[in-house]
């Protein structure tokens, strides 16, 4: 017989799996450029069974019919079970802050975001490079996004890309936009992230 505590956990897993399968369907319909019919019933069945098992777990816990229904719900979760378990296990969330030593240096994260052409933007239309004054940035940690899409690293002429020069007191980002390089354009939302060392 399946105990009430396990039923409660399965209901939570089924609810998460419902969202995961719905998300999967949405991704598939984007890829296939139209409605995806393969598993369209699964999200409904998962939500339906989660609700029914949740209700039945009070009056019918420990009875064979409920065990059969709950086990069937468990099999419906299938490939989503692993991810659902992971999400359920992390439900409370954890923030890990770096330790601060008495002396030496700590790693900090930088984040700069701006829209080219707007007041306060760090780059103007046509600009190619930008210097950010974060000391001792760690090599290979600077990333650039334009309109929330990560750029490819390298001095490429056939697509948008960027390179970074790391110096002791700053780093310089160069953005490549075609050949000749036309630089950044008005309206681009640019985000630059890095990890750097700060002496304490």
């Amino acid at each position, binding site marked *: 017989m399946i105990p009430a505590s396990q039923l409660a956990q399965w209901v939570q897993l089924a609810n998460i799996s419902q969202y995961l399968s719905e998300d999967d369907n949405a991704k598939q319909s984007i890829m296939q450029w139209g409605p995806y019919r393969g598993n369209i*019933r699964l999200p*409904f*069945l998962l939500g*339906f*069974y989660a*609700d*029914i*098992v949740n*209700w*039945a777990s009070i009056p*019918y816990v420990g009875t064979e*019919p409920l065990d*059969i*229904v709950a*086990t*069937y*719900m468990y099999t419906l979760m299938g490939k989503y079970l692993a991810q659902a378990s992971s999400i359920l296990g992390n439900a409370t969330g954890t923030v890990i802050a770096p330790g601060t030593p008495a002396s030496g240096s700590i790693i900090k994260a930088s984040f700069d975001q701006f829209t080219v052409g707007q007041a306060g933007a760090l780059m103007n239309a046509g600009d190619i490079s930008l210097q950010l004054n974060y000391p001792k940035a760690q090599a290979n940690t600077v990333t650039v996004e334009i309109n929330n899409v990560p750029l490819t690293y390298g001095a490429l002429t056939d697509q948008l890309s960027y390179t970074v020069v790391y110096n002791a007191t700053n780093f310089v980002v160069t953005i490549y936009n075609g050949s000749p390089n036309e630089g950044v354009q008005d309206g681009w939302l640019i985000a630059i992230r890095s990890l750097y060392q700060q002496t304490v």
Partner: protein
Amino acid sequence: MATYSKTEVVVLPNNMYQFLYSLSQQIANNPSVQSIPNYEQNVAAAYNSLNEAKTAGLYSDQTAAQMAINRFNAIQNNQVILFQ
């Protein structure tokens, strides 16, 4: 229009759940019933009526609750046709 007491707002969905629980057993025992034409749509319609009745009861919307309950009763009364 009928007026429901708070007790009935709880009891009515409970009866709906009871019926849907029997349907869920039918599917779990024999998943191939889902291939009966419109079987799942009818389960979905019954389930939606339950949710509408619950929501309507929550907001004391007697008209909406009555409509949802009527629809659910019609499905339940025709279960021989709809689910077999």
